[in-house]
């Protein structure tokens, strides 16, 4: 059974002559325990797909279902327990004046869960922090530590699905490696399902099993990571993206820039 099932997802903003369509018939199926990547350039609609799933947009049309339950347009508590999101910028996603404990206790309070103290302590350990972080504020943490807190906050409700919106693009390469290792470890231990948005094809082939390439709100190609790495991509757009990534790995030969 598919853990996440997206069928014919459409979304547009504005109305009348100002209407602009953001997503065109997006179909994605993610199996339980799989990690699925969404890649594409900025503005291609990849984050928008996550936001529809997370309940931040309500006016989509199409079929969304998670773990067999079809999603309503209104956000309910059940969906939050199934699915949590980790955002791109760990500097912006934590409340600057809430201590780490407050940030982690809030979802527990909303969902009326017990054993708060114990849950916080065990989740901190799970993401590689310890109890000494509880009473610190975000500004006392480094970027990597903040992203760990953001992952802890998402995991504290014990969801089955994590929506990851460029979780490492604001971090340095060395810290990125730590966070990617953590995500990989957590996935194996907890059997989580990931839906990750990124524009870094290296990251996507490292963490994800399958990848959908998006352009202008369409999915142009869905491909397994190993095929992607072994030049199995058939769409020119995918090849262009690959080309851009390989160029940073191999010596730049041509200085011709292509049209945007």
């Amino acid at each position, binding site marked *: 059974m598919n853990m996440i099932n997206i069928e014919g997802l459409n979304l547009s903003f504005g109305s009348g002559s100002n209407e602009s369509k953001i997503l065109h018939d997006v179909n994605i199926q993610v199996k339980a325990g799989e990690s699925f990547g969404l890649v594409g350039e*900025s503005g291609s609609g990849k984050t928008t797909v996550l936001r529809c799933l997370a309940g931040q947009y309500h006016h989509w049309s199409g079929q969304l279902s998670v773990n067999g339950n079809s999603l309503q347009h209104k956000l309910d508590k059940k969906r939050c327990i199934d699915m949590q999101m980790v955002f791109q910028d760990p500097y912006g996603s934590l409340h600057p004046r809430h201590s780490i404990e407050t940030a982690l206790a809030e979802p527990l309070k909303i969902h009326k869960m017990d054993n708060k103290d114990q849950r916080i302590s065990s989740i901190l350990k799970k993401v590689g922090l310890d109890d000494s972080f509880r009473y610190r504020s975000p500004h006392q943490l480094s970027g990597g530590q903040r992203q760990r807190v953001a992952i802890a906050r998402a995991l504290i409700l014990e969801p089955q699905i994590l929506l990851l919106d460029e979780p490492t693009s604001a971090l340095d390469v060395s810290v990125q*490696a730590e966070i990617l290792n953590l995500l990989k470890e957590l996935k194996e231990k907890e059997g989580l399902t990931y839906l990750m948005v990124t524009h870094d094809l290296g990251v996507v082939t490292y*963490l994800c099993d399958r990848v959908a390439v998006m352009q202008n709100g369409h999915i142009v190609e869905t491909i397994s990571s190993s095929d992607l*790495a072994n030049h199995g991509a058939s769409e020119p757009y995918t090849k262009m993206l690959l080309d851009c990534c390989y160029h940073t790995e191999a010596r730049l030969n041509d200085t011709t*820039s292509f049209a945007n």
Partner: protein
Amino acid sequence: MQNTKLEVKNLQISFSHEGNQVNAVRDVSFSLGQEKLAIVGESGSGKSTVGRSLLKLHPKNATVEAEKLLFGDIDLLKASEKTMRDIRGRRISMIMQDPKYSLNPVMKVGDQIAEAYLAHYKVSKKIAQEKALVMLEKVQIRDPKRVYSLYPHEVSGGMGQRVMIAMMLIPEPEIIIADEPTSALDVSVQRQVLNLLDELINESNIGLIFISHDLDLVRNYCDRVLVMYAGRVVESIKASELENAHHPYTQGLLKAPPRIGDIRHRLPTLERDPSWLYN
């Protein structure tokens, strides 16, 4: 190296805060000719601090000391504020990381480019505007007239960064400091912006200091790489020989990012050795 543009010897920068002294940069030496020099390191390694010190953009609580800080024949350490004003933007200019935050949100992008020219040359507004239009065309913006009168929120990230490059190049500087110019852009746009910058600096013999944390990017783009760790230069190496870098920190940075088709199960993370600080 012929015609050295910039010479830095034993640069030290420290910040004092409530009686505490923090040494942000120690003993950094390098020289820059007509080439592309990269300064690479993690956040907090002092790479941007070095870049900013060349333009004396530091707050009052910073102390900048050096045996030598020469730009051409001007001693930047002793330069007056007036001399610095003539240098900033005009002779050394700086491209910032994020076009979203670095452009003035309430001014048309074209006017911002023209303003950069007007600030340094005594010409009429009209000529500056024409110059700005030519510059927009040079940075490969297709419809310069239309883009001239757009506001920063109306242009995309890649276009914004091109506007910023135009703004920095229009006074015809001798050195450009690019502080992570493409880290806010995605891969496809990144390449266009870098190629463009490359063409333009070759064309006008500009020396480039490229500050970045992306060794992969830098190795293909720059001629020489300074690797910084905790305010020190741990390694200075030709970009083409980066593969043979011997410092464990450089090696660590090279190995950290996942590559396409990576089969490593765990990515190596940096083991920081305190002894690196004493070499």
